[in-house]
């Protein structure tokens, strides 16, 4: 069939030219937008405050690898909203939650955040967990001039007018943990972490701290997120014989690490491990026999003794079941909703500008103690606590800071951290 091999180029070549022509015509007719350096047309908020209810967004991963952690945060956001509604709402309006699934994907977080702001017209969004998800959402909140309340401890070095950070920054978690280790006589450290921005930044801070305080860092190892192969690293840790291990591993890696750690016969008495990503939720998965007696650094534990915490834990268990535990990110998320409501009440407005202006100095008496928003960097003051993992799977405070620590995301107040700072 020779005719079948004949070239028939006519119509498509022309179609190609035509489609190109259409693109350029469209490009020419559409008015050109702002160029670099010009102020873009400000996004108009579609927030509607005329009704009896006010919408807020809850954006957490309900599917994917982060779902197991982030659904607990969502539960405490709902709990806080219920409490506020039961007490009469915010500015006499009932809070209505619009929930979206971040699916553990930064791209989905950005997409859903924009949907919540532009289609659902929410007054504020609560959620996010990984730094990747926060970094993906940051331009969305800035460009649409909206508010995100981010509830997880993170690596610091960030401050946006449109994000309120209610988890710890480095000087409220990592530096107190180092202070504690130094106080107990630790003179050498081994660093183990997952390979992403939080452990790398944390270890940069630890190295600078160690140099200034005469602590020796004997090794620094990273594994890919989710890696479960630790025999080599644990052998190295064992051989190095450091006084303590600083652990910034995340997720499943902790299970494999602690199992291997116990297997080779290392104990908390020989070489304690200080972890910054292991909370009440994770202890069960790792296995209490592998981790009992090890240390963690957070701002809140379920066992914190205060009336507000007892009320919080009781309310949470009544709502979601007595077998559930409360953890630091859950508490920070719970605080974030109350802080937003308190700010709105003080501003007497839901408008973003008014909330931003009124936020500085707003305090909430939370389960961890009183937290106060710092108007300069939108972080909150927090009490640092070192906890020891006990046989019942809970963490008990063995050391706490004298009152709340002011947030210092860029570590301006620490001379030894000068080299870490961004130079303008």
């Amino acid at each position, binding site marked *: 069939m020779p005719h079948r091999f004949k070239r028939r180029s006519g119509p498509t070549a022309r179609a190609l030219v035509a489609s190109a022509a259409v693109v350029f015509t469209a490009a020419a007719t559409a008015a050109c937008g702002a160029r670099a350096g010009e102020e*873009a047309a400000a996004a108009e908020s579609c927030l509607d405050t005329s009704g009896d209810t006010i919408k807020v967004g809850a954006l957490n991963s309900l599917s994917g690898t982060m779902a197991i952690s982030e659904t607990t945060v969502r539960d405490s956001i709902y709990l806080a909203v219920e409490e506020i509604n039961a007490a009469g709402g915010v500015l006499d309006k009932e809070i209505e939650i619009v929930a979206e699934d971040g699916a553990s994907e930064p791209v989905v977080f950005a997409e859903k955040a924009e949907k919540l702001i532009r289609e659902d017209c929410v007054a504020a969004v609560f959620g996010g967990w990984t730094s990747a998800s926060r970094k993906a959402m940051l331009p969305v909140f800035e460009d649409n001039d909206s508010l995100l309340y981010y509830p997880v401890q993170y690596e610091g070095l960030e401050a946006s007018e449109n994000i309120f950070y209610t988890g710890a920054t480095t000087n409220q978690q990592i530096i107190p943990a180092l202070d504690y280790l130094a106080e107990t006589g630790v003179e050498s450290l081994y660093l183990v972490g997952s390979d992403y921005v939080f452990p790398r930044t944390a270890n940069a801070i630890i190295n600078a701290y160690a140099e200034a305080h005469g602590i020796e860092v004997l090794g620094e190892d990273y594994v890919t997120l989710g890696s479960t192969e630790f025999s080599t690293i644990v052998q190295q840790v064992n051989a190095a014989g450091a006084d303590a291990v600083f652990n910034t591993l995340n997720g499943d890696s902790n299970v494999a690490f602690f199992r291997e750690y116990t297997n080779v016969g290392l104990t908390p008495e020989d070489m304690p491990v200080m972890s910054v990503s292991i909370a009440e939720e994770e202890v069960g998965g790792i296995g209490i026999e592998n981790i009992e007696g090890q240390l963690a650094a957070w701002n809140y534990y379920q066992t914190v003794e205060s009336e507000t915490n007892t009320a919080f834990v009781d309310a949470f268990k009544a709502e979601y079941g007595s077998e559930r535990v409360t953890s630091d990110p859950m508490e920070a998320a719970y605080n974030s909703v109350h802080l937003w409501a308190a700010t709105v009440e003080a501003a007497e407005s839901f408008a973003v500008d008014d909330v931003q202006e009124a936020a500085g100095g707003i305090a909430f008496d939370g389960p961890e103690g009183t937290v106060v928003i710092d108007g300069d960097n939108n972080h909150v003051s927090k009490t640092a606590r070192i906890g020891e993992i006990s046989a019942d799977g809970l963490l008990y405070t063995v050391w706490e800071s004298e009152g709340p620590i002011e947030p210092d995301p860029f570590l301006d107040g620490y001379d030894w951290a000068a080299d870490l700072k961004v130079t303008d």
Partner: protein
Amino acid sequence: MSKFLQSRLGAWTGFAAAAIGLFAVAPLIMSGFRLGLFAQFICYAIVAVGIGLAWGRGGMLTLGQGVYFGMGAYLMAMHLKMADAEFRNGPGAVPDFMELAGVRELPAYWVPFASPAFTVAAILVLPTAVAVLLGLAVFKRRVKGAYFAILSQALAGAFAIFLIGQQTLGGFNGLSYFRYFFGFAINDPVNQQMLYFIAAGVLLAVVAVSLQLRRSRYGELLVAVRDSEERVRFLGYDSANIKVVAYAVAALFASVAGALFVPVVGIISPASIGIVPSIMFILGVAIGGRGTLLGPVIGALAVAWAQTTLSEQFPSAWTYAQGLLFVVVIALLPGGISSIPALARRIRVKNRPEPVEATA
């Protein structure tokens, strides 16, 4: 109807209708947010057109298109970060994420990406060249079928892991926070609409290129290689070269799609280019119908749209729906959505033998 679509007039009418739909109707009926989402879906559809060519026509199950999508995306993202840094702190400035990671000196391989022309050339040339070299290495050795699929998927996984380890490429978090696109502010709604128009124009162009290739002598050879590679070789053709061309064109399309994805979505990270996203690309093509010209486009748009809509209505239910959809298509409709009309016609003809005799 299908004869009409294959005719000259049909091709013209189809392109005109698609152009009117994309350039006139869509911006009228969609909000700025939905139009931005649609632009994102169009990027997936551009990748799908390439897969339709390599897999549907060439029989190469390209399970690793995330590699080329990622190359285009990271190349573009590097330029946008350089442009932002230059705008803030002057030429040669270090991008913001590197400052945070403590990098004070700009890595040498970043320097050329300050130039827009170099970046565009790299987006077009680099992934294509990689695909040609890889294709030659693989197809000359007659690696095919499941082995090729496994190889390409392993490549996508390895590329994502490689990127996670590169702190000067943003590591696990990837690159985000882009302010300007070739001198235009990305946060301006007018410019966002322009990005959509560019994406839509590129989609029309790649469909036209794909149509051209399908109708050419080369297209016939490609199908022949797919259906009986040995016979084509006996006829004196080098079947490896024929496959390399389709594979390289698919890589080029994926790279261009990735480059557009970055300003449209505002972030690129290893999570968007590894094994799972690569399978998502294939899924859209399979559901739409890999053998047809528009099947991959329709499939990619439909899957992306279904994912967004379903996850808004039923958060966390999408994963199950996706699996179910794939099983249903593979089991009941191997030709995809676009095979439904042909299937219906065959059933109709089977049920009515009499009219055929009457005309004879």
